[in-house]
């Protein structure tokens, strides 16, 4: 419903581009300026450690956006979206591991430290190509995308929907977590991959590199948003809303529900993978806990609090909830899970439309009070 409010106005008019560009410019410029040019002693200065933290929030925002595309519009509640995020992250992690070269603890020119530790003699075949950024970049999109394509095809073809789909996505991420915990999978077992040195030749610990990664996250979020906005405002976007509400009716109109769902599910998984790939160099580690089912549920909470089916909502929700998490886990760590649970219950019961959904509803009711009434009078 929230997305329908804009009808009549141009989706791509100046009313959209002005605030969008303003947000983009502020996000891209403010952080480097406050970090680099404002003296560190000033109250307005942004300390170095906050830059990757903000970058991390933006990655979460992109992840939440990707879930909103399928949950808010197509009604597909994936509770395993963390898996696509983690797979993208692992692809980036593999690239970063290959950049370490001989600077590891063992100084082995051929193998990452954890493989030397496990007495492996040669690089497994699936590590091939990860020395090159282009290969890694392709895999960041392909691996989550292909998994989504295969998983989605099996699920949607068999018409698995609703809570059953949510359960099997949880099972998927759980299974991947167990697999990645195993040392002989070749992805570093429960320690995962860390101690990165360079990305594209730049030192990952340098503040300029961190600013670069932050800006890359802003750009990725912006482009992801534009793409989701295009999809949801196209005829396909209206088809998504239609199948969310009356799936079998869509079939009798001659559309393939399977293909439509598969398309958005795959797009969403690729976005989640890109978010994960940008996340890893900024937090400096990827390990199997990223696959944990609880992580994926948390994404749904961000989307729900921000407002599903709004695209902006999940971005706002992810940033606000994570700001709260960062603050509260420092101030009173043991209370965080209770607060998160309470937020979810509250948002479901009191604000089912979330922050942005509720704001839009208020604005909509104020601006067009006569629509519902006049319909009833004439009928």
């Amino acid at each position, binding site marked *: *419903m929230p997305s*329908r409010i804009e*009808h*009549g106005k141009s989706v791509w008019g100046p009313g959209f581009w002005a605030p969008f560009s303003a947000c983009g410019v502020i996000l891209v410029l403010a952080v480097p300026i406050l970090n680099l040019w404002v003296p560190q002693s000033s109250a307005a200065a942004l300390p170095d450690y906050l830059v990757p933290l903000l970058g991390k929030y933006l990655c979460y925002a992109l992840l939440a956006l990707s879930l909103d595309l399928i949950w808010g519009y197509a009604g597909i509640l994936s509770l395993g979206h963390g898996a696509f995020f983690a797979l993208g992250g692992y692809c980036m992690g593999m690239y970063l591991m290959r950049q370490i070269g001989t600077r590891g603890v063992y100084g082995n020119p051929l193998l990452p430290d954890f493989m030397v530790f496990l007495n492996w003699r040669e690089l497994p075949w699936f590590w091939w190509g990860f020395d090159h950024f282009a290969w890694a970049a392709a895999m960041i999109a392909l691996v989550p995308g292909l998994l989504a394509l295969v998983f989605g095809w099996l699920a949607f073809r068999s018409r698995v929907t609703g809570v059953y789909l949510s359960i099997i996505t949880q099972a998927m991420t759980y299974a991947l977590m167990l697999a990645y915990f195993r040392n002989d999978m070749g992805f570093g077992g429960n320690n995962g991959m860390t101690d990165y040195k360079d990305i594209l030749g730049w030192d990952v610990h340098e503040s300029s590199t961190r600013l670069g990664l932050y800006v890359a996250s802003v750009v990725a979020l912006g482009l992801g948003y534009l793409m989701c906005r295009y*999809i949801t405002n*196209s*005829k*396909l976007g*209206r*088809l998504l*809303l*239609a199948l*969310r*509400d*009356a799936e*079998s*009716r869509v*079939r*009798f*109109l*001659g*559309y*393939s*529900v399977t*293909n*439509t769902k598969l*398309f958005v599910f795959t797009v969403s998984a690729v976005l989640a993978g890109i978010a994960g790939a940008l996340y890893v160099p900024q937090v400096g580690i990827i390990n199997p806990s990223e696959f944990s089912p609880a992580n994926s549920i948390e994404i749904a909470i961000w989307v729900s609090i921000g407002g599903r089916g709004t695209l902006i909502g999940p971005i706002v929700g992810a940033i606000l909830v994570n700001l709260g998490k960062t603050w509260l886990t420092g101030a009173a760590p043991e209370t965080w899970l209770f607060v998160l649970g309470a937020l979810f219950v509250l948002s479901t019961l009191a604000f089912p439309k979330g922050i942005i959904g509720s704001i839009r509803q208020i604005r909509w009711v104020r601006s067009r009070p006569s*629509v*519902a009434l006049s*319909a009833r009078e*004439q*009928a």
Partner: protein
Amino acid sequence: MKTGGPETNALLYLNGVTVSFDGFKALNELSLVVDSGELRTLIGPNGAGKTTMMDVVTGKTRPDTGEVFFGGTADLSRLDEAEIANLGIGRKFQRPTVFENLTVFENLELSLADDRGTWGTLFARLTPDRRDRIVATLARIGLADYSWQLAGALSHGQKQWLEIGMLLIHDRTLLLLDEPVAGMTDRETEKTAELILDLAKGRTIIVVEHDMAFVRSLGARVTVLHEGSVLAEGSIDHVQNDPRVIEVYLGR
């Protein structure tokens, strides 16, 4: 199993179709032939198999045995819902099912006879030609003033018309209408009868209905179903005077 179609000019051809659910035979050796351009009404008591017949024709239910052919060659028992819809068979459900969170205009836009592929739909443009067809359909179903209203806010009767409009705009060859006047006021029922008679010019329509006054107003050939097979067929006066029909249905 025959690979070609049966030798007939019928648009819809059902022969010996049986569907059973846990031993209950919803359709029992049902044979039904509907000619091209015909308006046919289907009546029968509850559980006679009317809705199951529509489910079989539209691919929602697969027959256990029997043949279902469309246009002489297309074997409907082997196709899925979307493939059957794309052959030109449209269905209106018993309860109005419009897309409540889309506007009336958007409901019709999705129903246009257009590329149904994912890419085609993603990059679809609302050309003036398409817009005109939607506007013309809106006028025909009497919803021109409701174009930008969410379909969920329409009255029951308006939803039924919108659903008929969604079939109309696609230019289907065969329309299956399941109880199109259920829950309508007398005025709405009259208007719907006019709309259906108007639609019947140029396409084949099968109407399932309980409302005998409405069936009479359509003045079409009537098929009476009972326990999953055809009990009687003919004009409304003919079937109303048939003692078996009176026994199972009309007499009560």
